[in-house]
């Protein structure tokens, strides 16, 4: 399952000023896109737009070639999974954290248990399931944040600098694992990063943003 998104003449304002102006961008189905650019270039705004958390003032959005009015619709949002730089786990057990999005979708408990086990073992966090999330290390917490989204089997996976808070050693380990795990999801993926190595290891396409505008979009 994956999704193709096309943005045309998109303008997003914040405090009355344009922070994102995209003339034309295609997010290709099933491919991995790296979003790069300096701080304040509009990377997070684009990810928020694609997550359905903000709406553009102007422009046209096509999903699988069908025009849509508003991405903030709950049905669309439930096709998307967002991982932020900070894991932002709930003050509950690791199991409950991984299951929370499935509970939002009212998935039966038996199915939830299967999904948690499936992704919990792939991410090597089965031994953490009963722990309180507040007791995890930074790397462990980010694994839980990834499992929490992978269990949802999103058609569009959005990662906002997912390695940004991790130390170099943990980051490299993660990178290696994600390279194996991302193709398993078959989701269309967009991740923002500052790291050239992450782009080379993971991405099929590189989208460069500067001052809220696409400055380049290339194959990696």
């Amino acid at each position, binding site marked *: 399952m994956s999704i193709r998104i096309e943005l045309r003449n998109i303008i997003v304002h914040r405090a009355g000023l344009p922070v994102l102006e995209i003339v034309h961008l295609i997010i290709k189905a099933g491919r991995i896109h790296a979003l790069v650019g300096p701080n304040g270039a509009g990377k997070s705004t684009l990810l*928020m737009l694609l*997550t*359905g*958390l903000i709406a553009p003032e102007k422009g046209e959005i096509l999903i699988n070639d069908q025009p849509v009015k508003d991405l903030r619709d*709950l049905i669309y*949002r*439930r096709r*998307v*999974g*967002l991982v*932020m730089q*900070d894991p*932002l786990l*709930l*003050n509950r057990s690791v199991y409950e954290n991984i299951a*929370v*999005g499935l509970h*939002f*979708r009212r998935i039966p408990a038996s199915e939830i248990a299967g999904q948690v086990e499936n992704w919990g073992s792939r991410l090597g966090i089965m031994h953490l399931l009963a722990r*309180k999330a*507040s*007791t995890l290390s930074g790397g462990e917490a980010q694994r839980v944040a990834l499992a*929490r*989204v992978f269990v*949802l089997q999103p058609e569009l996976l*959005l990662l906002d600098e997912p390695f940004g808070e991790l130390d170099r050693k943990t980051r490299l380990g993660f990178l290696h694992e994600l390279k194996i795990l991302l193709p398993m999801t078959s989701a269309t993926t967009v991740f923002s990063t500052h790291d050239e190595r992450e782009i080379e290891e993971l991405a099929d396409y590189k989208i460069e943003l500067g001052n809220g505008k696409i400055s380049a979009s290339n194959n990696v």
Partner: protein
Amino acid sequence: MLFNNPDVWEITLLSIKVSGIATLISLLLGLPFGTLLALSKFPGRSLLLTLINTGMALPPVVVGLAVAMTLWRSGPLGGLHLIYTPSAIIIAQVVISAPVVTGLTVAAMQALDPRLLLQLQGLGASRSQTVFTIWREARLPLLAALMAGFGSVISEVGASMMVGGNIRHQTRVLTTAIVLETNKGEFNNAIALGILLLLITFLINFALTWIQQRGVKR
């Protein structure tokens, strides 16, 4: 013995009932309103927050005066015949405790990471699921808000006296009974009632604290 006196139990039960209902109503009003104030932006929000914060320090006698004038026979709601009834005390106590619960709910919601809302929505939470999840996340300060709301009304005397009238078998509560016994010079009775009031406050807060601390991070 004071505790063999059926009047004492009647007064005690009425105190718990009146303040319990007032706190519950305050929670039903203050929790959603405080959440709305904390999470949304609209014109006049700052003024409302200032009014709520001022309301947290409202003197009970001033509330009693305002509610008494409203419910007085010649007042705007005099036709409801509520003055000197337990309902009048509940109304006055809601006016006292609702701003406390609302103000502390605002503080509890604003203490959460603002990105948590985005993350929950990014996991597919509906609006109501988002609100219930953050209430659960902020359950410790929200229980503190509930305790503060209850504490503000179980111990107040001015408003209960003014709108309830301290009528035996009808509107006499522990605090107004303590005032009466003190005025009569019956200090032993007043002290015993005071200890009973403290005991009730302790037991209810002990129960709420136990619930609260079960959720504390370890």
